[in-house]
């Protein structure tokens, strides 16, 4: 049985060869997975907010889309990943509450998280090969290094592999 590593809020983890990366109960946050199929290296980040420039300080790079993507890349390169073969999968970015007539940017932060994450992936030239974002339900995600599949569990909607 492969090791299961839980990736907490604003954390990021890179692994080599085997392992399962898990994040439970994603709402507006994003579970981002990058992987290098050839070298068997993968990483997961649990991104909370779109842009570190809106914040006073950055204690954990995994917290923001603009800091998480380059930091996760660095961690994976340190394990030997090549930039050329990298691919991305992501899930999350839901809007848990909806108040008619109110467009609070905080309630819609999920969509901005998904957008910013994809924008940064594009800047680094990493293709998104699978995505399950948006909607109004939370998700738990699990990435298996061996199968390279991201299992997404959504309350009341079952489980799917992307």
């Amino acid at each position, binding site marked *: 049985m492969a090791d299961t590593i839980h990736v907490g809020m604003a954390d990021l983890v890179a692994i080599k060869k085997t392992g399962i990366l898990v994040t439970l*109960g994603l709402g507006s946050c994003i579970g981002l997975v990058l992987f290098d199929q050839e070298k068997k290296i993968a990483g997961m980040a649990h991104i909370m907010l779109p842009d570190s420039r809106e914040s006073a*300080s950055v204690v954990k790079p995994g917290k923001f889309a603009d800091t998480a993507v380059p930091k996760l890349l660095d961690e994976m390169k340190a394990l030997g990943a090549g930039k050329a073969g990298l691919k991305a999968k992501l899930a999350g970015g839901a809007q*848990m509450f909806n108040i008619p007539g109110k467009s609070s940017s905080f309630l819609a932060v*999920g969509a901005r998280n998904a957008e910013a994450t994809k924008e940064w992936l594009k800047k680094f030239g990493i293709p998104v090969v699978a995505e399950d974002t948006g909607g109004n339900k*939370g998700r*738990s995600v699990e990435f298996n290094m061996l199968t390279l599949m991201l299992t997404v569990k959504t309350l009341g909607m079952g489980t799917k592999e992307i």
Partner: protein
Amino acid sequence: MGWGEITSLQLDAVREVGNIGTGNAATALSQMTGRTVDIGVPEAKIIPIYEISEHYGSPEDLVCAVLIRTEGDLPCNFIFLIREEDSRSLADLLIPMDLSSMDEDMQAQMRESALGEVGNVVLGAFLNAISMLTGYVLPASVPSVAHDMLGAIMDVVASIFGVLGDAALLVKTSLRVKDMEHEVGGSVIMVPDPGALESLLQRLGV
């Protein structure tokens, strides 16, 4: 100002807001349900945003959350949080008819509407306490009800606090509805928008 810089005097003041707010909320809930409602001693503390959901359970626990937003003098979000199974008993207590003859969609709609109203009444009473303490006018939005995993609900709380820094103000209140087959417990969570903290503390004179 980040939450990490709050003084212990200010924390006491916020705890007192939580205390009075919860007292009001308990009275309202008691009137609504016709049951005795106990309140726990409220806590107010500064914790890392990454640990918020741990204070309420496990990330995949099923919960029901009702959120309302206030604008104007105090832009703030208030959440009434109960366990999913408790939300069902609470809704059924408030719906004065037998739902079993209805189809499931209809039952769900009735419960949803009852829970929105519970949230409205409980959070409205909490807001009234803040209004009385501060003199602020706090127009509240309509309630938004969500049923989901605790972790997913708490993302909302963490991301609002997270804009300012890595600390969150946890005002943990508890309400318990007695004289039911299963005792029902809930909490009110208060999440001011960035910047709203200063005005609240200033009004409280700390």
